[in-house]
């Protein structure tokens, strides 16, 4: 877009409130601000594809860099990693599981903001919906991390990997510790960045999912590599 030089300063001002016409549409057509916001982002006159690409590309490149750093940790200790079969089998499941919590937490939090179930002015934890989400996610995280550790060892045993109680305990410890530590971090990041993005009048969905899953991926790979090096 060509902008006259004298207007560049105005163009750079960050959006901090709705345009006047938004209030008019809200009153006249009885549409919620959330719906109008969605229409503004992806409405009939907008180029939805270019909006999505423009808003997502930077965070996706950042996510790629972060997860590649996580991958470097695995590449660096790949001999040790390849020698212990439960770790290979566990890796995609652990990675998925923590990433899943990133997607669930961020998409549900984004929807809570859109639908007004979380009022940013009153504090996030005042919302009963938010408290239930935290309780559910932590409970499911414990159950599924135990499942991942036990089943990956069981599958390895079926493939001929010898049973050793010490190795089994270490595998379980890696699964549970990685999951719980990263779910806590994901919650904090989702809430902080979700509020920030929403206040900038952008769609949190385009930012929160990539950022939380990349934290999950980067964090799980680094924590996983660190624990494998320390424990094995």
């Amino acid at each position, binding site marked *: 877009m060509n902008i006259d030089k004298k207007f560049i300063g105005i163009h750079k001002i960050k959006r901090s409130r709705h345009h006047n016409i938004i209030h008019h549409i809200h009153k006249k057509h009885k549409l*919620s601000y959330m*719906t109008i916001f*969605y*229409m503004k982002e*992806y409405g009939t006159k907008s180029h*939805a*594809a*270019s909006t*999505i*690409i423009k808003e*997502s*590309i930077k965070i*996706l*490149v950042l*996510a*790629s860099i972060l*997860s*590649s750093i*996580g*991958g*470097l940790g*695995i*590449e*660096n200790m*790949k001999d040790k990693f*390849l020698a212990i*079969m439960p770790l*290979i*089998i*566990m*890796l*995609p*499941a*652990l*990675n*998925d*599981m923590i*990433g*899943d919590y*990133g*997607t*669930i937490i961020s*998409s*549900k939090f984004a*929807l809570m903001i*859109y*639908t007004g179930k979380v009022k940013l002015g009153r504090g996030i934890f005042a919302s009963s919906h938010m408290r*239930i989400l935290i309780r559910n996610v932590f409970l*499911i995280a414990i159950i*599924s991390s135990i*499942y991942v550790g036990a*089943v*990956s060892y069981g*599958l390895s045993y079926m*493939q001929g990997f010898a049973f050793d109680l010490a190795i089994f305990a270490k595998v379980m410890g890696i699964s549970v510790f990685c999951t719980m530590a990263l779910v806590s971090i994901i919650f904090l990041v989702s809430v902080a960045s979700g509020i920030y993005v929403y206040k900038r009048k952008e*769609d949190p*969905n385009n930012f929160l999912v990539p950022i939380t*899953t990349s934290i999950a*991926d980067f964090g799980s*790979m680094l924590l996983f590599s660190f624990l494998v090096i320390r424990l094995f």
Partner: protein
Amino acid sequence: MADKDFSEILAAEFISVTGGLLAGIGLAFMAGKISLIPGLFILIPGFLEMRGNLSGSMSSRISSGLFLGVLKPSMRDRIIKSNMLATAILVVVISLVLGIIAYASSLYFFGIENFSIVIISVIAGMVSLSMTPLTVYTTIWIFRKGHDPNNIMGPYVTTLGDFVSVFAFMIAIAVVS
């Protein structure tokens, strides 16, 4: 509602994790080949994550639109088609970026030059494009059935993404070697 959420997330997570474990077995079988291609371990986490990121964001955007009543639950909706196009473009671009990062890191940190990693990444990205329409269809289907796609689609896309990614890697490695 809270109990419904709990059971939906737990069931979806159980399926996701089981799928991840099965993909892990696939990875264990490929371990010999993977260890022979320098830099592939740098690429794998990012590639597995990319599918989840892009499909997860797309599904989440579509879910928000469906709940707000802005989108029609149909594959022919204009915004839904735009979402699919944007996701396809992003998959190809990010695959290329991941390949370049893996190539550069391998060269810088381990002193190994292996340009085939870039080609493997782009080919695998293109193979994995098949996942996009399936993700959209499932999001709409789940919404029509009266469930919250946000509870189910996260685990679903990562599970499907793992399978598709491991399969895409197999094809890409076979093409390059």
